[in-house]
């Protein structure tokens, strides 16, 4: 007898692979998804009663395939729509698990194709590879379910109508397309990092799958390392609704196993791409994330890596981090000067003003510090951040 939890767990683990195999076979997202849903529904009803089959994945793929073939036979217009030229016979026997190709990578590149809008790429990736329901995705991105459903339908329609290929791109397209896939995964992670933990966990699952499927890409391991190490500090990042700065975090809340796993992924990334780190922004960020959790922190090296990353990304936000690291390394004046120079780019970014407030406070310029904190408070949106700023402002009075 098998418990429901185990069935649910199998569903979660298998959905992406089963759906990828079906899309590869049928060439149609909608039909594949409906067939997969049917097969999973039958399994949910049958497995708890009759036990989980020896090879759940093969059972699910075979059942869904047969359902889809039945439908195509009944519906000729559907047959014209899918790529099958001749409708095969349904298979009675379960196919061998090893005969089902792993096409998750093809699916990932299709979902993250640049001809789809970014929000559609994200939604499609979560739906197809992550197996999240439309309602769950809608809730995570704070849009009505209806809107999310339309977004997904439209994206699937475009893939078919516009001829977006279901494949891993050829070498000359791969660097750009891989960057797009990684950007989607990181975006999902960051949505989760702000508090919605299930999205962060989902992004890490996707990152692990990518690392397994593309073991020789430094950026894949770099991104995985970055997510693992940052996520390992999640429980320590918020306390009573307030953001807790890294230096004030309770280290006993960190997940050290996960940090170790992140470190191993970083080592792998460095072994593959360490000779040319400037080509690999995720690798550099992962190295930074690891340096941040080390004790004592090597601020000089952190500042140098932020400098590298700022050159790479031309991002004023990264420059701001470099300014903080320079100040932490002991040169508060130079850190402040660098932060001040970012004013034109980041005037509406509350972290700039919060950082200036902190550095001015350290230099004993209380009045300037107060003005900077007040400016930051005007711009901040999150309650947790606001309460941190108010705390800091309060420290000035004292």
């Amino acid at each position, binding site marked *: 007898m098998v418990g429901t939890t185990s069935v649910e767990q199998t569903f979660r683990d298998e959905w992406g692979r089963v759906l990828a195999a079906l899309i590869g076979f049928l060439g149609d997202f909608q039909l594949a998804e409906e067939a997969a849903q049917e097969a999973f529904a039958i399994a949910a009803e049958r497995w708890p009663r009759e036990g989980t089959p020896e090879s759940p994945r093969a059972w699910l793929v075979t059942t869904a395939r047969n359902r889809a073939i039945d439908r195509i036979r009944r519906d000729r217009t559907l047959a014209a729509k899918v790529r099958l030229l001749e409708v095969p016979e349904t298979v009675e026997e379960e196919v061998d698990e090893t005969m089902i190709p792993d096409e998750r990578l093809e699916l990932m590149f299709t979902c993250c*194709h640049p*001809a789809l809008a970014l929000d559609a790429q994200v939604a499609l990736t979560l739906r197809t590879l992550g197996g999240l329901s439309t309602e769950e995705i809608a809730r995570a991105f704070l849009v009505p379910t209806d809107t999310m459903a339309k977004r997904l339908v439209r994206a699937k329609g475009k893939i078919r*109508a*516009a*001829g*977006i*290929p279901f494949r891993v*791109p050829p070498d000359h*397209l791969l660097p750009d397309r891989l960057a797009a896939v990684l950007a989607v995964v990181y975006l999902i992670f960051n949505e989760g990092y702000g508090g919605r933990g299930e999205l962060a966990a989902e992004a890490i699952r996707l990152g692990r799958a990518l690392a397994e499927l593309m073991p020789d890409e430094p950026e894949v391991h770099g991104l995985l390392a970055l997510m693992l190490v940052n996520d390992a500090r999640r429980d320590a990042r918020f306390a009573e609704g307030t953001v807790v700065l890294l230096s004030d975090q309770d280290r006993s809340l960190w997940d050290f196993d996960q940090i170790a796993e992140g470190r191993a992924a970083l080592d792998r990334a460095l072994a593959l791409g360490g000779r040319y780190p400037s080509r690999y922004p995720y690798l550099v960020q992962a190295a930074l994330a690891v340096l941040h959790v080390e004790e004592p922190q090597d601020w000089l090296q952190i500042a140098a890596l932020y400098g590298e990353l700022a050159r790479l990304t031309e991002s004023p936000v990264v420059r701001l981090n470099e300014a903080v690291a320079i100040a932490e390394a002991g040169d508060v004046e130079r850190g402040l000067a660098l932060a001040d120079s970012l004013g034109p780019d980041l005037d509406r970014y509350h972290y700039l003003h919060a950082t200036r407030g902190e550095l001015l406070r350290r230099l004993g310029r209380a009045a300037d510090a107060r003005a900077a904190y007040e400016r930051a408070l005007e711009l901040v949106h999150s309650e947790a951040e606001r309460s941190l700023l108010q705390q800091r402002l309060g420290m000035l009075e004292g």
Partner: protein
Amino acid sequence: MKYLMLIHQGTAPTPRTPEEWARLSEDEQKAVYADYQAINQTPGVTPGLQLDSPETATTVRVEDAKTLTTDGPFVAVKEALGGYFLLEADDLDAAIELAARVPAARMGGAVEVRPIVEW
């Protein structure tokens, strides 16, 4: 898959805008001709007919059974269609790669890739 490739000139100079066209060096002008020629000779491409400039367009509407004509293209002149060709290709990636070789795409215009419905 069949695609209609719609070329929007945007601010890209063409021989139809002699002043801007003259600002290109001779080599740049030659490259534009050579690139369009190469595209027309690419397998799967059916070249389009040449369109006159958007300024020469007339836009026609019918309201209350009355035909209304206005001078100029349906969209703004800068956004108007400059040319087109037909492409038969395996998938969208192939169409995007060819679109990126259209000179207008790199000179201030753009190419819109529209799949053609096949029954």
